[in-house]
């Protein structure tokens, strides 16, 4: 909770501000490592469940004599006179694609981690003057070597830093200015959430390359990418502006890659290091399905309007990913601070060229100028609500373990912007990049949107909707809006219908009229993005939304190797106490009806055998919260909600990687485990829940050498990564 009602009294605001300052002191001590969460619990600052103690002057939720009816906490983020919909929404900033990573990058990428030593900065924790450590943070040795590096050598290098806020002087939206609401890409872009808001301090916001707009990687199947991520965050862990951790692990959500490239939560790297992520971009099943690459639908675009067949199952084609930090226990802070970007993957089916009519290309709204990856009418939207302090600097309450909500809506890190559109069809790839907030999106006139993809996977059929399903954190909904139904000069708005009063779940899904009424206490309900219909398209709209998109893979002939149950709830305990790999928090996961356990990335909770299919049931262990559960690696199909397929809406009947449980609910999915091995994760993507400590490790470890069974746990230090045996292996993990 991070906002108070508009009619809050001045005295209540002062009280809340005092509470905020008091908490800030504790927060700083916690962030600086001067105290631990366990100590805070022992002192009564946190409750046994991990929530901030119900103390007046500390917890802004504590009702004072006059404040029993006030549901929320802190002063609203000031707007400095900024008006809604007064600045254009910037398109994503496309990261450069550099051919031949082996000559472009220095040092040259290697299959195994580059352990060349460098002198370490003594400001790093645990580093003495003169200490050395490896230049690459990827764990060393054969287990963490890039799988398939020789078969799928990287052909494109994408290089980015993680660093503090600075102005962007090399913005590349990859569209002409008229497709970017008139934004001049040559103008320097200060890191502000709106031109009228203050510039963010260097340690208030940490983004890719230190700049906004958010970054976009363009990829295509069978063109492996080497993503080199440099950590240029402060060496001193205390230099974080109050929240955020300077160690990072970059998760390509939901890449079908080897685990060494997945951004495992325990494979984090330090300032001064880089990590090479190898994204081979292959169709799942490439080792066993369509191995001769004869199916014309399993293909990737070439540079001349044609396509090249590739192995694998065309029904596993993916389209809209994102990548973000996955630092153990600090994901929420780091993602909120700016570690979030998107990744569009193009294929023969989803070409990003609406003009090519070859019988395979679905011709979804995009553009025609390039062979693939046209962005003119294919727009990434990153939704994330933020909060800032009296000085306009990004702020976060890390003490509310139930979830964090901001009070200011941003799209592409811009406060309530407008976007100019033509009278034609557009595709929007909508990412919920919030920490704990769910959205439910409609248009202000309740007109129809066509949902074409869920979690970046094209659905079997497009689904017409006047309001999208609730969209949990990390879910991606691709939709098509046809603006030809409007006249030039008209406006229509995207509206959020999901009302929160805390970060545990949405309380109420409002009607459009209710959301537009302005009566909601939640400042992020209502209009958040204005579409301005500004002109007719220069050329006719030849894009299509065909009646059939991508059918689901038929798994019925693949035997189910086993079933597992995971219950997500509170009251977790720990059975391990490793100072690096364990984390205590109120949240936990119960595996196969065992104990409810807090996170330990040294614990193996499940270990499906390579080449098998399993059925997993994910249960919500409570009624007062929802959890969007993310399972890494390969997409699943939803078999049932609360035991029945009838409860699964049409827009959820594709492939997914994030599964909202709903209060008291359950969801049953099926997944395959193939192609790659290593250790992956399953966790709540309400990243506050994830960090406190609703996360588990599972692994595919019997795919042959170099994999051991079970895999050793990486323990990163600036001097290098060491390995140790798993702390714990649950009794049902390996069965």
């Amino acid at each position, binding site marked *: 909770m991070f906002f108070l009602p508009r009619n809050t009294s001045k005295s209540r605001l002062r009280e809340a501000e005092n509470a905020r300052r008091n908490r800030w002191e504790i927060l700083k001590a916690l962030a600086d490592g001067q105290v631990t969460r366990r100590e805070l619990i022992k002192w009564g600052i946190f409750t046994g469940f991990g929530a901030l103690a119900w103390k007046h002057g500390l917890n802004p939720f504590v009702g004072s004599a006059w404040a029993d009816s006030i549901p929320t906490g802190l002063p609203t983020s000031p707007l400095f006179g900024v008006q809604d919909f007064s600045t254009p929404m910037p398109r994503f900033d496309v990261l450069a694609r550099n051919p031949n990573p082996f000559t472009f990058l220095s040092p040259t990428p290697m299959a195994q981690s580059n352990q060349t030593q460098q002198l370490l900065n003594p400001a790093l924790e645990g580093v003495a003057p003169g200490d050395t450590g490896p230049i690459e943070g990827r764990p060393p040795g054969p287990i963490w070597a890039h799988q398939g590096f020789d078969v799928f050598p990287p052909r494109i290098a994408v290089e980015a830093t993680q660093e503090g806020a600075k102005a962007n002087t090399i913005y590349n939206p990859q569209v002409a200015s008229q497709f970017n609401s008139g934004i001049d890409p040559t103008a320097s872009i200060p890191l502000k959430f709106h031109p009228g808001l203050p510039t963010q301090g260097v340690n208030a916001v940490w983004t890719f390359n230190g700049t906004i707009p958010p970054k976009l990687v363009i990829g295509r199947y069978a063109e492996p990418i080497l993503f080199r991520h440099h950590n240029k965050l402060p060496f001193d862990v205390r230099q974080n502006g109050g929240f955020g951790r300077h160690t990072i692990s970059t998760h390509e959500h939901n890449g079908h890659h080897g685990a060494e490239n997945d951004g495992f939560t325990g494979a984090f790297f330090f300032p001064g290091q880089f990590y090479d992520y190898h994204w081979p971009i292959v169709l799942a099943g490439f080792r066993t399905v369509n191995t001769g690459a004869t199916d014309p639908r399993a293909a990737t675009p070439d540079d001349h309007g044609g396509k090249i067949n590739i192995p694998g199952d065309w029904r596993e084609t993916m389209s809209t990913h994102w990548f973000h930090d996955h630092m153990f226990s600090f994901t929420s802070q780091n993602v909120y601070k700016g570690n979030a970007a998107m990744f569009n993957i193009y294929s023969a089916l989803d070409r990003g060229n609406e003009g090519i009519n070859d019988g395979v290309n679905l011709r979804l709204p995009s553009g025609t100028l390039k062979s693939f990856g046209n962005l003119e009418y294919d727009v990434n939207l990153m939704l994330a609500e933020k909060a800032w302090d009296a000085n306009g600097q990004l702020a976060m309450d890390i003490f509310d373990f139930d979830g964090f909500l901001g009070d200011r809506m941003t799209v592409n890190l811009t406060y309530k912007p407008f976007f100019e559109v033509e009278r034609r069809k557009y595709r929007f790839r909508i990412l919920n990049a919030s920490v704990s907030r769910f959205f439910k999106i409609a248009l202000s006139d309740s007109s129809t949107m066509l949902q074409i993809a869920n979690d970046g996977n094209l659905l079997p059929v497009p689904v017409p909707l006047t309001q999208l399903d609730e969209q949990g954190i990390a879910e991606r909904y691709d939709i098509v809006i046809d603006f030809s139904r409007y006249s030039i000069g008209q406006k229509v708005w995207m509206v959020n219908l999901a009302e929160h009063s805390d970060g545990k779940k949405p309380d109420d*899904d409002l009607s*459009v009229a209710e959301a537009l009424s302005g009566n909601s206490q939640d400042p992020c309900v209502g209009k958040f993005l204005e579409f301005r219909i500004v002109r007719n398209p220069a050329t006719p709209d030849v894009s299509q*939304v065909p009646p059939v998109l991508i059918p689901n893979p038929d798994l019925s002939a693949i035997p189910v190797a086993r079933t597992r149950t995971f219950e997500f709830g509170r009251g977790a305990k720990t059975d391990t106490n490793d100072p690096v790999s364990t984390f205590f928090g109120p949240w936990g996961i119960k595996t196969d009806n065992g104990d409810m356990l807090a996170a330990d990335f040294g614990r193996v909770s499940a270990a499906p055998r390579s080449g098998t299919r399993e059925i997993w049931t994910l249960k919500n262990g409570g009624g007062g919260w929802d959890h969007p559960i993310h399972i890494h690696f390969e997409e699943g199909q939803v078999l049932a909600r609360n035991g029945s397929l009838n409860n699964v809406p049409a827009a959820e009947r594709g492939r997914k990687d994030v599964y909202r449980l709903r209060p*008291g609910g359950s969801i049953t999915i099926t997944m395959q485990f193939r192609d790659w091995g290593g250790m992956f994760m399953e966790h709540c993507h309400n990243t506050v829940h994830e960090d406190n400590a609703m996360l588990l490790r599972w692994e595919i470890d019997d795919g042959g050498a170099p994999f051991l069974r079970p895999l050793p746990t990486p323990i990163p230090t600036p001097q290098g990564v060491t390995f140790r045996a798993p702390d714990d292996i649950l009794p049902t993990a390996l069965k």
Partner: protein
Amino acid sequence: MKTRRLLFTLGVRSLGGAVLASVAALSGFPAMAQTTITASTTSFTSTSSSTSTTTTGALVSIKGTVTGSPESVSFSGQAKLSASVVTDPDFGNSPNVVLSIDLSNVTGVGSSTGKKYVTSSQEVLSRRLIAADKVQLTFPFVQSGGSPTTSRVGAASFNLSYNVNSLKLTGATGQIASP
């Protein structure tokens, strides 16, 4: 004990339509010929919390006309509602409702052509539990066999009554109109 309750719940659920009964007969709600409330079930599916879910189904006869171009469409049929009231013993907050509204059995007839219009709308909403809840939503519809790109929009509204003690949906009425 929990297992026995769960099995009972599943057993009741599996009976499906066979356990339908009239509103007046089962819930004591004032008789409304157009609404049928199914038997409610309460389940305890969590092993880590005493949270319970009380699910009540309802079949609501619904009708109304959506005006607009190229023709007005008169809708009628049965909306299928499922209200799952979920308790929150962990935080002590009021129960909340996961409300499912399925309009796929509601069809329309064009006023001038007599052609059939259909919708596949299946909406799931989070709602606070209150004794009388008015739910408004919109839904896309197309001429039968038509492309979803040609969708038009209608509005449905429901007046729902809950017994906030038993956590059951006790009554429901609905209508369709232009948005």
